[in-house]
């Protein structure tokens, strides 16, 4: 079971009770949507490889009261199609759910054309947008079910690298505390929770205890839990597989700026990561590997 499978199962479940739900895909995921398509032939459309048009069509469906779910690969449905998201959905005050795969380095073997780390920042510029990074099984189902009819533009960014940590209470916008500590606050976005916990466990061996906070909803982001923690530790580390500009670090440090003094370290993606390999290898190349994170944190603590 992957998050993508869970996505299809959630659509099947919701379509039974929500007759307005329509799924448009850009020539991906047909296999996992086979049952959905059979049960709902008039509410499943493999539109083709035309992502901007899929977004515009979603806006058109929303215009007459349908609840569209547009699904394809992250860079194409967000970066390529951003003007459609901005104008057709944002400016026209319409709503849609966009569900992407291929987050950050999930398509590590396919090169930079298939990497995606500015999508979250782009979407978050739109006032009516919510941005979710469900990163473990069950998370998509809960976050989508609670949000998909909120009348806004909802972006759900699926990962193929689930963090594997059970989060008992999931609420859109709510930050979850995963580890309790005193010396350092690590805030992890989406799949980077796995790395954050590994870093915290490693540091604990050096008698450094960390608060680890998990962010699955980038927008709206309720920072009070982060503020509480950083007030205590005075040291903030953010871990995100997003661009250095406009991501978690920017949002959190802006929100906390001027309230109290604290040190901070950002772990994010600086630029294109050329080359191929696995998700973990490219994360390492981007400076998100556990050993590099631990090493830079040690310097912060000196």
């Amino acid at each position: 079971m992957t998050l993508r499978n869970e996505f299809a199962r959630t659509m099947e479940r919701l379509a039974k009770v929500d007759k307005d739900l329509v799924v448009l895909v850009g020539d991906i995921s047909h296999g996992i949507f086979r049952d959905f398509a059979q049960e709902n032939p008039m509410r499943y459309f493999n539109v083709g490889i035309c992502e901007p048009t899929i977004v515009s069509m979603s806006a058109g469906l929303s215009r007459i009261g349908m609840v569209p779910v547009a699904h394809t690969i992250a860079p194409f449905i967000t970066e390529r199609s951003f003007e459609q998201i901005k104008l057709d959905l944002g400016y026209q005050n319409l709503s849609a759910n966009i569900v992407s795969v291929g987050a950050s380095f999930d398509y590590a073997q396919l090169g930079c054309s298939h990497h995606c780390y500015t999508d979250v920042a782009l979407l978050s510029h739109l006032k009516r947008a919510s941005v979710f990074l469900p990163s473990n099984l069950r998370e998509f189902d809960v976050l989508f079910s609670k949000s998909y009819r909120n009348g806004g533009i909802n972006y759900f960014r699926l990962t193929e690298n689930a963090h594997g940590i059970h989060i008992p209470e999931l609420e859109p916008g709510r930050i979850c505390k995963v580890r309790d500590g005193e010396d350092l606050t690590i805030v992890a976005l989406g799949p980077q929770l796995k790395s954050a916990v590994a870093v915290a466990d490693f540091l604990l061996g050096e008698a450094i205890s960390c608060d680890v906070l998990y962010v699955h909803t980038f927008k709206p982001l309720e920072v009070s839990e982060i503020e509480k923690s950083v007030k205590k530790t005075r040291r903030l580390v953010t871990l995100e597989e997003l661009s250095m500009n406009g991501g978690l670090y920017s949002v959190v440090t802006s929100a906390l700026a001027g309230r109290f003094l604290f040190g901070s370290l950002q772990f994010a993606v600086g630029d294109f990561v050329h080359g191929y390999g696995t998700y973990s290898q490219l994360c390492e190349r981007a400076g998100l590997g556990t050993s590099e994170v631990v090493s830079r944190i040690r310097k912060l603590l000196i």
Partner: protein
Amino acid sequence: MAPNPKLRARIAEMVHRSGEGHIPSSYSIVDVVAHLYRDVLKFDKSNPNWPERDFFILSKGHGCAALYVVLNEVGILSDEAIDDYGTSWGILGGHPDMTTVPGAEASTGSLGHGFPFSVGIALGLRIQQRKNRVFALLGDGECHEGTIWEAAAVAANRQLTNLVSIVDWNGSASQLMPIDDLPAKWKAFGWRVLEADGHDPEELSRVFGPDSLLSDSNQPLAVILHTKKGSGVSFIEGHGTWHHKIPTEAELDQIMKELFE
């Protein structure tokens, strides 16, 4: 005399008064927009969001002065709204905003958006098993945009016969990258194609009449209209400086003289 001189006069006055607008692009479509609202589209002037209405989407949003004066003529848009065109306190400007303008079905301006948006509406109406039709008006210059052809392929593939694409073939594209045979291109994308003189009332009646619209074909209909930018006023016609030019007082007088002589 050009058809619809009063509508053309209103457009020129609006643009002159506000200092904003595309007169030639509006003049090339004002006749078809007027024809659609007078004789073709189902709508309720007291309820622009009437669920059973036909949808008219002006994909080439810069021709919106034509839409505004026609919406005014049919009673959807008030005289006050027209008078306040282009002001900070009015609701009308250089491109339509569907969130504020009664009867504007889409907020267009950036080309290549309104048409795929229309395809989404047509698909949704099909899903909902509703009888409403969707008419999308595109520019030939707008047909440079890739999303026009993405959406054209999708609509034909889905056999969206509740959708009519109207192309204002005023030759804008020919100035930079000519689209030599627009009807052939729409045919190649799987559309049923009709052509007409976009300024001739009889021709418009023919292509938008029941015989044309109520076809057994499973292809959506593209109506390619041969039009002139600035049609109706000799010195505005064509592709010169008038594209986004504001008439002076003297030029406005000259426009009125030509329109009503």
